[in-house]
């Protein structure tokens, strides 16, 4: 049974359409990440699911029941806000138990539930404190605890980790994943961080300008991006995009650089068609035997630790490659990169759509 159905949801503010028809169906226990840059409508969509904003059209169903007319408290959801939104005047214990208190759960039962959640999140020692006496990470845990304690059907997260520093963010990310594996509750998570999306999601919806660009598993998003936008949004450093023109079974990249057109695309691409060739930096190899090769002039070499990021130029086009850190490469050097055929992505230059 699907836990959450979003059917043709639209949202307009006056003339401006921020959501242009969103359709997503989530199975129970899925972890959906809404990924996009700011202003793409992902937070609006989350607020519509939560009932904090009204949809201009379409329907939202939780557990098969339409909830658009229901008050947020009656939707069987819990939400974790970007700013945590803890109640500053109440103790941590009461913050976590507030939802149960409002639902008139007896004090003893409430206390047991709060302590259970606190134990799970390792914040038992903080229960008597006020939010102002907590660190950022601890506040985040309290905010998650407040959502957990109610055992809702769907969890909503609105960029919950974006206020934490990098190290803490990684820890909490792992923790969230662990929680999801343990609780197996349906979760909807909004973020603009592609690493969070890739690591947490069972499915990612990449959003842009109020539309879903691609909805798929992290592997699909990474390995078969449907559009140029998705291709550049996921992955760091981003996918290399090279302008190219098909010509006699070759992809011409510049004055004297070209790659053979992979067999699979031969009958789909006419000569003279303007295309964009996408190659992930990590798909480029130094081993010339690995596949078709292109040569480039190295401009900058950056060692990040686990890998060597090489920026190079092919004629007037730039290309980045992530190579093993031991590679001996210097600026100015002429290198030959090999690419496997199935690591090549081909997009139409005008529509930006993937050529299957």
């Amino acid at each position, binding site marked *: 049974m699907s836990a959450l159905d979003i059917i043709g949801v639209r949202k307009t503010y006056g003339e401006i359409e921020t959501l242009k028809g969103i359709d997503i169906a989530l199975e129970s226990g899925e972890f959906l990440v809404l990924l996009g840059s700011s202003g793409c409508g992902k937070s609006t969509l989350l607020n519509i699911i*939560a*009932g*904090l904003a009204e949809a201009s059209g379409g329907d939202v169903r939780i557990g098969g029941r339409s909830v658009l007319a229901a*008050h*947020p*408290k009656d939707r069987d*959801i*819990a*939400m974790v*806000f*970007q*700013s*945590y*939104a*803890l*109640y*500053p*005047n*109440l103790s941590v214990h009461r913050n976590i138990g*507030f*939802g149960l208190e*409002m*639902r008139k759960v007896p004090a003893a039962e409430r206390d047991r539930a709060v302590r259970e959640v606190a134990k799970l999140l390792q914040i038992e020692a903080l229960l008597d404190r*006020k*939010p*102002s*006496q*907590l660190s*950022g990470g601890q*506040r985040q845990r309290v905010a998650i605890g*407040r959502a957990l304690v*109610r055992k809702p059907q769907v969890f909503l997260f609105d960029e919950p980790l974006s*206020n934490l520093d990098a190290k803490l963010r990684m820890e909490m990310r792992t923790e969230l994943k662990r929680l999801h594996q343990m609780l197996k509750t349906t979760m909807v998570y909004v973020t603009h961080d592609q690493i969070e999306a890739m690591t947490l999601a069972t499915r990612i919806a990449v959003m842009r300008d109020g539309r879903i660009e691609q909805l798929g598993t992290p592997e699909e998003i990474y390995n078969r991006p449907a559009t140029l936008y998705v291709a550049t949004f996921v992955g760091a450093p981003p996918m290399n995009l090279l302008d190219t023109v098909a010509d006699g079974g070759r992809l011409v990249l510049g004055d004297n650089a070209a790659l053979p057109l992979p067999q699979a695309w031969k009958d789909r691409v006419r000569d003279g068609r303007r295309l964009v060739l996408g190659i992930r930096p990590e798909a480029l190899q130094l081993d010339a035997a690995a596949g078709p090769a292109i040569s480039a002039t190295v401009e900058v070499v950056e060692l990040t630790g686990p890998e060597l990021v090489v920026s190079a130029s092919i004629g007037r086009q730039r290309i980045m490659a992530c190579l093993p850190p031991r590679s001996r490469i210097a600026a100015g050097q002429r290198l030959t990169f090999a690419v496997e055929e199935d690591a090549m992505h081909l997009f139409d230059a005008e529509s930006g759509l993937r050529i299957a």
Partner: protein
Amino acid sequence: MERRSLAFSVFIHMAALLLAAVILAPLVWLFVMSISPAADLSAKPLRWWPQTVDFSRYALLLSTVANSAGAAFTASLRNSLLVSGMATAAAIALAIPAGWAVSRTPTVGWSLSLVIATYMLPPVALAVPLYMGLSALGLLNTVFGLALVYLTILAPFTTWLMKSGFDTIPREIESAAMIDGAGLWQTLRIITLPLAAPVMATSALFAFLLAWDEFFYALLFTSDQRAKTLTVAIADLAGGRVSDYGLIATAGVLAALPPVLIGFLMQRALISGLTSGGVKG
């Protein structure tokens, strides 16, 4: 703190002392006048410090013998407390829902601007219509009538103050409470109002002071001990052929005490920063 030279520290302290002296000098002089014998106050050259300390005026003003100056004064003290108290309580009671509504619904902000605009009208312009209105309602020379008039002055002011107070409370906190299942009233009572307590106290204090110090309307709309407020009563003291400056000063000292007391009581509530910690930063 950064290091400072001794000379700079001395300068800072001197400046603070000077500021305190400038602010406190009139109050000190008021008190000195209130305990000086009448002769000292009219002596030439002026005696800055009384030869004998005389507290008899305090006894005179606080006596409750019928038809005495004391009876008039204590009646006006009671009236002032009643009028200011009622007007302030009503103004806060109005300002909480009104300020909250405007803060959370920016599209109706124009209505508050409109109300604030009426605030710009000089009291003189409103005096005649208000007088006729109160007269028609039979509220002239009553504490209720005066409190009602003061409410028209205080409510826009407190609403505006409360609105800016509510603006600083993140809406997400209320959204969270809503998802947690709290009704509007519960959200206000348990979450929003405790967070708005400092600004509520500030509004109440300023509203009370505004009502306490009001003179013009009080002079127009009250005529005897049943409703006359302190400001009018003090003016009456100066109105006769012979003005006892010492008596006026004594009345001034007594009139200043209640607001000072309230200020002290509210000091704790006035400490802001209670909202820190709920959201990031």
